[in-house]
Structures are given as structure tokens and as C-alpha cells.
């Protein structure tokens, strides 16, 4: 079965109209404009287009209603939104706010297969003893949500956060040694641990472990990347 997909904008309108039409006041142009953060004339134009597609039942200055086809599509989008948000909060452990934001962005692109597999993964983690706890522990050591995109030296990259090497700004002989060991621009790198006395550090790069002093790590620039290596 081929699923008819609308543009992301159209889906947003349908979803908003569905939500507002369930209130006592009904969905009105002004409210829609406010919810979507656009100007009322824009809303009018969009509603006109949706009416032409047979999705919206619209009369100027009255409440906006959905046609049966429009309602089905709106409910579909809303369902995807809820499924995504639930996956983000319950399985990925994101905050309500982050989850809401991410769900709004991804609801238009998530295919039924993706949603199905996400739900299955959540069920798998919940129904197999100890899995959820392990995943939670791994998530917490990774601390991936912290400031992606930040640039710092490798020395300042917190253990468990991975980074992309931007430059290796050290003296000739040492630079040769570092690049031949695989620390080249563009490679993913992560600090695994710091020695008990606080100096050399152990990093993961290209699937193996390498140790270097902090003085050397201070000269390697990295851009933080969320997630594990």
C-alpha cells in the first residue's frame, strides 16, 4: 500500500487543526497562526490550498474543520509524533522538552517501518532482564547530549565523549608519530581514561588504544560529537 505523504508544512497544519478542533473553541485562523508561529494571511493561503486538496473544510471567519481524508492524515501525523516522543523519552532517556522538539522535526520523515522498529527496540529493551539498565548505564557514561559541536583540545574532551580531530598542531617529529598512529584530521577519537596519577591519558582511535601525555593532547583540536565511537 502506498502511503500518500504531504509536505511537512501541510502535515503541520493538519496536525494543528486536529489538536485545536478538539477544544471547545474549535480551530480558528488566528489560533492556528499563533500555534504555528506564522502570520494570519499565510494561514489563509495555506488553508485555501488544503481545501483545494480536499483535506480541509474551510469558511472564512468560521471554525476550520477537517474532511474525513484530512482527519485520517492528521491522526496519522499525530500518531507518529506521539510514537517518536515516547521513544525519545522512554527509550532514549531524553527530557520531555528535547523529545518534543526532536519529534516535531522527525515526524514527517519517519516511515512506518522505522516507527515499528523503534517500538520493537523499546519493547526488546524493556522485556529482556537487565537490558534497560545496561543501556542506561552506557548512555550515562557516554554523556553524548552534552554540547555537540563544541570545539576544544583533546585534553579537554571529557572521557566518554567522542570528537572529530580537526588539527594536529605539534612539532614535526611528534606530529609524524601521531599521524602514523592514525591521529589524522577527520578521525573519530575518544578519551577512554586518565592514568591514576593524572597524566598520560588513554584514547580510542581507529579501533585501538593509544596513550599520550596531556601536553600532547592539548595540541590536538577536536570537535565534540555525540554518541559513542
Amino acid at each position, binding site marked *: 500500500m502506498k502511503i500518500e505523504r504531504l509536505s511537512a508544512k501541510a502535515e503541520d497544519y493538519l496536525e494543528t487543526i486536529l489538536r485545536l478542533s478538539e477544544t471547545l473553541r474549535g480551530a480558528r485562523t488566528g489560533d492556528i497562526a499563533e500555534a504555528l508561529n506564522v502570520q494570519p494571511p499565510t494561514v489563509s493561503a495555506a488553508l485555501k490550498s488544503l481545501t483545494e486538496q480536499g483535506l480541509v473544510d474551510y469558511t472564512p471567519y468560521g471554525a476550520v474543520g477537517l474532511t474525513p481524508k484530512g482527519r485520517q492524515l492528521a491522526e496519522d501525523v499525530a500518531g507518529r509524533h506521539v510514537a517518536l516522543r515516547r521513544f525519545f523519552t522512554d527509550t532514549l532517556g531524553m527530557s520531555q522538552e528535547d523529545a518534543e522538539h526532536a519529534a516535531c522535526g522527525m515526524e514527517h520523515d519517519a516511515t512506518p517501518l522505522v516507527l515499528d522498529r523503534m517500538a520493537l527496540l523499546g519493547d526488546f529493551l524493556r522485556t529482556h532482564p537487565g537490558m534497560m539498565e545496561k543501556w542506561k548505564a552506557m548512555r550515562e557514561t557516554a554523556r553524548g547530549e552534552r554540547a555537540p559541536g563544541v570545539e576544544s583540545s583533546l585534553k579537554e574532551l571529557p572521557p566518554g565523549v567522542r570528537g572529530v580531530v580537526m588539527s594536529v598542531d605539534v612539532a614535526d617529529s611528534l606530529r*609524524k608519530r601521531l*599521524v*602514523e598512529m592514525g591521529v589524522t*584530521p577527520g578521525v573519530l577519537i575518544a578519551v577512554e581514561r586518565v592514568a*591514576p596519577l*593524572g597524566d598520560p591519558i588513554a584514547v580510542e582511535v581507529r*579501533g585501538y588504544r593509544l*596513550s599520550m*601525555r596531556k601536553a600532547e593532547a592539548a595540541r590536538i583540536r577536536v570537535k565534540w560529537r555525540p554518541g559513542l565511537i
Partner: protein
Amino acid sequence: MNGRSMPSRLVVLLAGNPNSGKTSLFNWMAGAHQHVGNYPGVTVEKKSARLTRDGVEIELVDLPGVYSLLAASPEEAIARDEILSGTASVVIQVLDATNLERNLHLTAQLTEMGVPVAYALNMSDEAARNGLEFDLERMSGLLGGPVVPTNGSTGEGVGALLASARLAAAGGQLCPSRVYYGADLEEVIAAVASQFEGDDAVSARRRAIGLLDGISDPHAPSGAADLAAREAARLEKRGGRPLDVQLAEARYGFALGVVTEVARGTAHYVRCDRTLRLDSLLLHRVWGLPLFVFLMWIVFHLVFTLGEPPMQWIEAGLGALSDGIRAVWPAGTAPLLQSLIVDGVIGGVGGVVSFLPNILLLFLAIAFLEDTGYMARVAFLMDRLMHKMGLHGKSFIPMLIGLGCTVPAILATRMLESRRDRFTTILVTPFVSCGARLTIYALLIPSFFAPRWRGWVLWGLYMAGIAAAIGVARLLRGTVFRGEQAPFVMELPPYRMPTWRSVAIHMWDRAWMYLQKAGTVILAISILLWALGTFPRHPESGRHELAQAEILEYTAIGRIGKWIEPAIRPLGFDWRVGTALAGAFAAKEVFVAQMGIVYSLGSASGDDSDSLRQTLRLHYTPLQGLAMMLFCLLSAPCVATIAATRRETNSWGWALGMLLGMTAIAWTVTFLIYQAGMRLGWGGF
């Protein structure tokens, strides 16, 4: 150029990264035929073996383990020179299948060398357990040489590997360069290569890349060097990063490309493996160091406690042999020859052989720690502390071993890669109080100090030695070995259980080198010292009533003692102490025996030591006693140490420099302490 169809003699070089399992494959192929030596001029081990397969003579050479062929270290220079020497029929690169990407970086350079290459995909069983499988046929096509899966612990695949290597050599098929450096770089490489007129295409390309990579090539045409410098500057500006980085990126691009093409299975996450779990314990923020101290205690215990009984058996055996010779020797005939055999040769051989149990156990422990991967962690744990002293994390193990005996400690400095770190460690390790010096302390401390002070004096002496080591290390770092500190960029290899076979071979190789090289020097100097302690002979030495002290006084050593008396008087020593110190050069514990002889008490062992202590108390003040111990601690190390230093630095200059330097330091420190003590009125009995 390698188009020989039926070569009657093949030279097969074994190349690969450190920890790729290269040496265990070599051991499987070489069996008992191997020979260990050094590359000329440097203390880099050269392992080779001669084999015969189907009537073809094969010389197999185990190259030093390297990450690159850029000739930045002595090991890399040797590997590169051997491959390029023109004698190599084929190179076998050992690839660690669990760490393929970094291993293939070396392959990228190897394919530029213009020799046929065969590949051993080692530890593919371990990779399979991690969920990785390889398409060997595809890999062979991409790398331009046969790929044979091998297993270093069982020897599986070794026969097939050698057969493939022979085929590759016989085919004479050169492994073409497989790395594409990108349009801009390729254009520049071709331009620079065209300047090498006398070279063939492969060699010209290699040397052009070398010049662009910043490797000095003294024989390159000046046109090539100039062009390379100009183009390098242009490309660096354009790429926004140094050219060597751009070249390395391209090589790693090749490596990653091959891995992506040939590896199948779930991605290998380092973070979920056994090594991570072990490191979480062994490198733990709190438990890491206590565990390390415990493991080192085990090593130390193993080496010096377990080694003690066999050492005593050997000494007892040699003693029995000497007694036997004396007993059967026809009385009165050639007493000098008897003395030479018994005291000189057997005594000298004893000096070499009695170390052997300790050395074997030490090398066993080191081989085990190295082969499991823990040695790299030791350096990781101790680097901060040792770095402050001007040393390297790996310097810790030799200094620890130095608490037992300096000779194996100096041999253990081979673990250090940088020459500066290695030489500094060799030169300061003798300051760590060894077991032989403990026998001196054990005699002198109870002679002069009240029981409640004894522990403190002993502790103070050990600390003084460590302080001297730190001071001298910093001094050397600031002067002779000045310059940038060796970087601490070191692989932390995965933990692996070594096979006993490989540990045993590893241990035996090093022990044999010790016996061969250090042994001969120790023996020679022991005989020399015997001669000094025997000649010139007292005219009436045949008479029994003549005291041993008088005979000794008459000999060269006795005369040396008297001769140096003016020099050592400011330290509070008389000629008797001087004689004992001269004798202590053979071995520190001889000091005790010599003191016994000069005070006519015979050998100072067992029951005699109490009477010797009383005699010493009558003749010397506690301050003089302290000065003696301090001097023994800091002064010229024993003959064996000098021999080991000569062996490991490959230079008499360093060995003699150590001798003179340490004696000078000992004299100065003892002088200051003794004179200060006298001024402060501590010189009384």
C-alpha cells in the same frame, strides 16, 4: 629486477607492527634454527634463521616491529634499509586482524618499496570471535599479494604462508603502489619523481614521496629536493595542514577503504571487549596503583627469592669444584696455576653464572609482562612520576629491578625506545641500592649504630640512592641528553595470554645474549682483578705463618689501596678501606671479605662477622662507617655493571664515563658529609 624463476636461495623478511604477533610466527617458522644478534652499530635485536624447504635455502629475518617506514627511529631505519637493500626476495607483512586499519597503514608504505609482499592475516580467530570475517580473495586482490590466515599461538597456517611467500618471490611480481594520494598530490609526486633520472619508476616514486614527507635523502638530485620543498610549501598552504599529515591521511584512507571492502560482520567496538574490563580494574583510579605495587612485588619476589636457592646451588657447586681441584692438585706444584684456575677462572665464571638464575627469572617475568600487554600499562601508570624525574614511564621497571641487581636492570632498559631515555636510565640505575650493597650495610650498620637507629640508617641510604638517581637524571637531561623529551605516544595493546613457548623463547634469547656478551667481559675483568690481588707476590708467600693481610698488602690491590690513601683520607678512609674498595670493584660484596682479610680475620662470613664488627668499631667512628656506606652506594659500580653498560650502550666511552662520573659524585658527596660531620663534632666514637 626480481625476475629470477628458480632462485636457489631466498631472503624472506618478516615485517609488521609491534604486537602484531610477528615474533611468534617467526618462532614457528624458524624453530630451533634461529640466531639472535644485534644489527651492527645499534642495540636493536636482529633475529634470523636459515631453513631449507624443498632444497631451497631460505634466510628468514625478523625485522624490528614498526608502525611506519619513515625512518624516524633506529628500528624504522633498519626495517626500511633491510627492505630496500636489494637482497630481500619477498617481504611477509604480519597483519593483526583485530586491528587491521592501523596495520594497513604500514602496508600502504610497504607497497611503495618495490618488493613482492605476502600477507599473514594473524589472529583472525580472535577477530572471528569478535564477529569479524574477511574476504581473503578480495583482500589479496586489493593488496597485491597472497593473504594467508595464520594463528601465532598454534602455528596454524605457517606452512601455507611460507609456501605463498616463496611463490610470490618466484613470480617476481612486484607489489604495485596501491595508494592514491589525490589528484594534486599525484601530480606533484610525478613531477618530483621525474627528477630522479637514474632510478626506475617504483624507486623514483618512493623517493619523491619520501622527500615530500620530509625524509632526508642525501643522494637525491638537488632539482628534486628543491622542487619537493617548493611544492610541499604550496600544497601545505592549499590544504591548510602539513604535507606529512596529508600523506598520512591518504594512507589511512587506503587502509580504511580496504577494511571496508574486505571485513564483514558487526563493527568491532573496542569499548565492549575483555581489555576494557581488565583495564577498568588494572588502571582503576584508586586500585590501579596498589594492584601495580602488588604485581611488582610478585615480580621482585619471584626474581630474587625464587632465584636465591639455585644461585646458592651454583655457588656451592663451584665451591665444591674449587675444593675438589685443590684436593687433587699435587701439593707444591705450580701453585700459581692452581690459584688462577680456582680463584681466577672458576671465581670469574661463578660471577657470571651465579647471576643466571636471577636473570632467567627476571627475563621470564619481563617476557610475560610484555607479551600479556601489561608492560605498556606499567609505563602508563608510572609515566607522570618518572616524567618529573626526567625519565620515561618505562624507566620504572629497570630501576625497580636495580633494587635486586644492577646488571639485569641495565639489560631491562631495552624496553625503552628512545636513546635518550634509555641512556639516562642506564646511567642512573646503578644509584639504586642493589642486593650486594645490602651485604655491606648489613655488616657496617650494626657495627656503628644503636639498634633503634639501624632501620632509619638503612632507609636513609636507600633514599639517598634514589635521590642521587633523580638528581643525576635531571642533570643529564639538562646537559648531555638535552632536548625535547621523547613523546609518550604508545600503543596500549589488547591483553593476550601468551603461550609458554613464546615466553620461553623470548626469555632464552635475552639470557643467551647476556651470557655471550656481558659474560665474556665479566670473566676477563675478574681474571684481571685476580691478578691484581695476587701479584706481585710476597717473597715469602709460601710460608704458612705469614698472615693473609701481609700478602694482600704486598699485592697490586694492596698497593693501590695505599696509593689512593691520600685521595681518600679526606673522606675518613685509610689504606685498608682503600684496598677493600678496590676489591669491591669486582663485586660490591667483596668489600666485606676484603675488610675481613686486611684485619687478618680470614673470610668474614658467618660467625666471623661479629668479631669483624667489633674490630671495625675499635678502628673507625660511626661517621667513618656512614662515609664508607655512602661511598659504596654512590661510587663506581661493579665490573658486571660496567660490562653491561658497555654492552647496552655499545660504547666503552659511556661505560667508563659512568665509572668516573659515579666515583666523582661519590667522592664529593662523601667528602662533604664527612667534613661537615667533623665540623659539627660528630667525628667521635
